[in-house]
């Protein structure tokens, strides 16, 4: 029932995830302040949406696993 | 029959069949009158486009039909299912020719009648007469420049460029006079416009193409949401329009 815990792998992966989350947080805050300060922010916000989307798909959703076989 | 001689013979025969079909169908098309009578300048533009598309469509249609007739007559196998045809997998010249011809045709019709027709229809934004038309379930109300509101008949002067400003009070309707070939939806909250320049006198009583018909499904009364159209001489129109105002006044009082 209990399987061996791969502590090192887990720690490395967790750290990566938290780093990505911090980046997402930073981007969100910058995005927010641009939106509050700039009058017509549409063009300015698009890169932030794209960057956040890419981070989530790449690191959280593992989109590249789609193109590999197996686990 | 597999040799190139057979191939050529088949090609020539199917080509002749195609040609014959094209000639017959084009002759038929030019000798029958399918489109309704033109009562407006816009009808001419639209009918020209219709005719041109048909003239170009007949060869395309005939090609398929010629191929089908020829294949049905000539390539029928008497043998069993194990007898295979020649293993022609593809042919670059045929594919390229096909692509070039279909693309050329698509580009041609896009330019003429497509863009040309569009330009002609939009050539002139001015109008000599503006009539507001309002759709409601299930009747049309036309308001003339002098303020007359008319519900029972749309009377229009001949040889006048008329702009109809169309809207709706409830749901979607569509303004369509088949004799003019013009159509635009009546959209609540929006004023759309369409032009017609009547060129011939006539009335609904003589020709059902002269009717303002609702063309957008609007419920129970949709089919009968019709207003008769009558095209009259300019002088007669002015007199009629003035009459409407005097005729309307007592009626409005009575209603109020």
């Amino acid at each position, binding site marked *: 029932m209990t399987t061996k815990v791969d502590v090192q792998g887990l720690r490395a992966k967790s750290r990566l995830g938290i780093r990505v989350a911090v980046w997402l947080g930073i981007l969100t805050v910058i995005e927010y302040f641009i939106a509050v300060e700039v009058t017509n922010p549409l063009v300015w916000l698009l890169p932030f949406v794209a960057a956040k989307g890419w981070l989530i798909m790449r690191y959280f959703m593992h989109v590249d696993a789609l193109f590999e076989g197996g686990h | 029959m597999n040799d190139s001689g057979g191939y050529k013979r088949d090609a020539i025969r199917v080509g002749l069949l195609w040609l014959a079909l094209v000639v017959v169908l084009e002759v038929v098309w030019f000798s029958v009158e399918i489109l309704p009578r033109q009562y407006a300048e816009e009808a001419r533009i639209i009918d020209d486009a219709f005719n041109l598309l048909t003239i170009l469509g007949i060869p395309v249609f005939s090609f398929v039909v010629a191929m089908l007739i020829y294949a049905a007559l000539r390539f029928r196998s008497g043998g069993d299912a194990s007898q295979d*045809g020649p293993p022609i997998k593809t042919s670059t010249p045929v594919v390229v020719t096909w692509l070039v011809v279909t693309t050329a045709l698509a580009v041609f019709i896009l330019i003429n009648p*497509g863009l040309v027709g*569009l330009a002609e229809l939009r050539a002139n934004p001015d109008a000599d007469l503006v009539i507001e038309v309002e759709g409601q379930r299930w009747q049309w109300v036309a308001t003339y420049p002098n303020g007359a509101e008319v519900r029972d008949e749309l009377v229009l002067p001949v040889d006048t460029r008329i702009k109809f400003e169309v809207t709706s009070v409830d749901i979607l309707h569509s303004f369509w006079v*088949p004799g003019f070939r013009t159509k635009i939806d009546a959209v609540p909250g929006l004023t759309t416009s369409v032009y017609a320049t009547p060129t011939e006198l006539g009335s609904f009583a003589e020709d*059902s193409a002269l*009717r303002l018909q609702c063309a957008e499904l609007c419920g129970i009364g*949709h089919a009968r949401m019709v207003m008769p159209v009558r095209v009259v001489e300019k002088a007669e129109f002015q007199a009629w329009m003035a009459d409407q105002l005097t005729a309307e006044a007592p009626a409005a009082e009575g209603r109020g």
Partner: protein
Amino acid sequence: MRPLIRAVVLGLVGYVAGAWLTVAVRGGSPSDDVAVTFGFILGLIGWLMGIGVWNAWAREWFGLPAKPDQATGWQRYLTFNTDHKVIGVQYLVTFITVLLLGGFMALIMRWELANPGQDFLDPDTYNKLMSMHGILMIATAVAGILGAFGNYLVPLMIGARDMAFPRVNAMSFWLIPPVAIGLLSAPLLGSFDSGWTAYPPLSVVNEGGQVLFILAVITFGLSSILGGLNIVTTVATMRAPGMSWGRLPIFVWAAFAASVLSLLITQFFAASLILILLDRAAGTTFFLAEGGGDALLYQHLFWFYSHPAVYIMVLPAFGVMLEIITHLARKPLFAYKVVVAGFWGIVGLSVAVWAHHMFTSGMAESLHAPFMALTEAISIPTGLVFLGALGTLWQGRLQSKTPLWLAFGWLFNFTIGGITGIYLADVATDIHLQDTYFVVAHFHYTIVGGTIFALIAGSYFWFPKITGRMYHERLGKIFAVWLTVGFNLVFIPLFWVGINGMNRRIADYPEFFAGPNAFASVAAYILGAGFLLYAGNLLWSARRGPAADPNPWGARTLEWQLPSPPPEHNFPLLPEVVGHPYDYGIPGSVHVAPMTPEGGEEA
């Protein structure tokens, strides 16, 4: 039978519970839009759980072992069976039934339209009948071929034992009966009279049956999405060794392309209907001018789905017909790669042509020219399909069989459908023709003449594979001619009345159009009678027909290398694909390595 009874009971219980709870919470009547909505949702869940989702699937979510249904024989067809062949047959029988029902409604309409004036349908009933006919037939065209042959044939043709997600597959079929029940019970709430297009504001202000239409069609959309997702995944991940993309049978390509399209854009139909539902039930104002809403928004969202939907209908039909033509002409499919490129060209362009339905809608005039150009451009990839079909017939050894006769009728009809489509893509002519019988005739040529002909031709062509018996060939040919001639007699006159000023969706018309309408009505009854021959032939042959050879056409694709009907899990051995499926006439060429069990040891 038991699961079906359970499903009906749980469905009803769910409906009543949903409606009752709504009334208990917010008051109002159990027949108002909100109560019906929640009733339908709970009823749908009850139905699905009852038919087998609970037993075969949902138990696992709670850590319990699944208990798949063990029914055998004909009872399999009434259960949550995950065999793709069972599901294919379920779809086929269901949608041919819906087709006949929708056709019957058309005959009632033609009875009313035989003479000007009101005969026996009042305009309101007529509009409702016309709307019902429309949506039933649209559903048949969207899901008929993809559901029946897509499910039955795709795994067989690519050498797989089943679809990638068999339970999702069973669910996408069992979502269909609630759709039918929802639509057909709409008259209880006053039915819906806004056509299958459900344009607001009419669809916001009309009677409550419209809500059932909305819920049923959203459910149908969910079924299409799940079905499409399954076909795409199956083709992408489950092909037998050697079945490269370049060796896929053309029907698989067609089903794959149509599924990609269906998977993505169907959501726009769902979204547009959800917005109508919100306008009706939640007091929003998306399409009502009073609150600043915009009726044209619906048309954009709706046609963004509904124009490509035409290609969801017709791409699988292309696939079916090219299969039939290739096998029965006994020649390689002409320009195979070009045809596949044509399919993808159609998929790509189809999402960029929607506004040609709106040239007279009052939308911005700057959109007219681009949409005209893109719409006319789609004739180029469509033309490549004709190139493939005609090129394959050229110098073939045509086997004179019913499916091929129907293929000829199909090519003829679809040519007319395609050419008349140009008149509607051209802004000038469309201004006159939009919303007339010209449009009605045009789309019947593409959808009936294109898709339904393929559904019928396919039901003959794969009949021996599905049933193990042969249909009656001569009766089949008589029907093929009857159908083609009858169909053309009905719809050719309708082009004329449309051009001359008869608008569509009307119960009454000016005296001027009496002649052609009477003609079309008589022809419609002749056409309708022909379907007795069709149904009779297939029903009788399925029970009493002579046993069919496993491969009566001498065809090369994988499904024909198996016994008829194919056994459960299809392939006794993993097939190995070694060549192209259509290399007729090339000496020594093979599609599949022989599937004999020699050397095949139980591992």
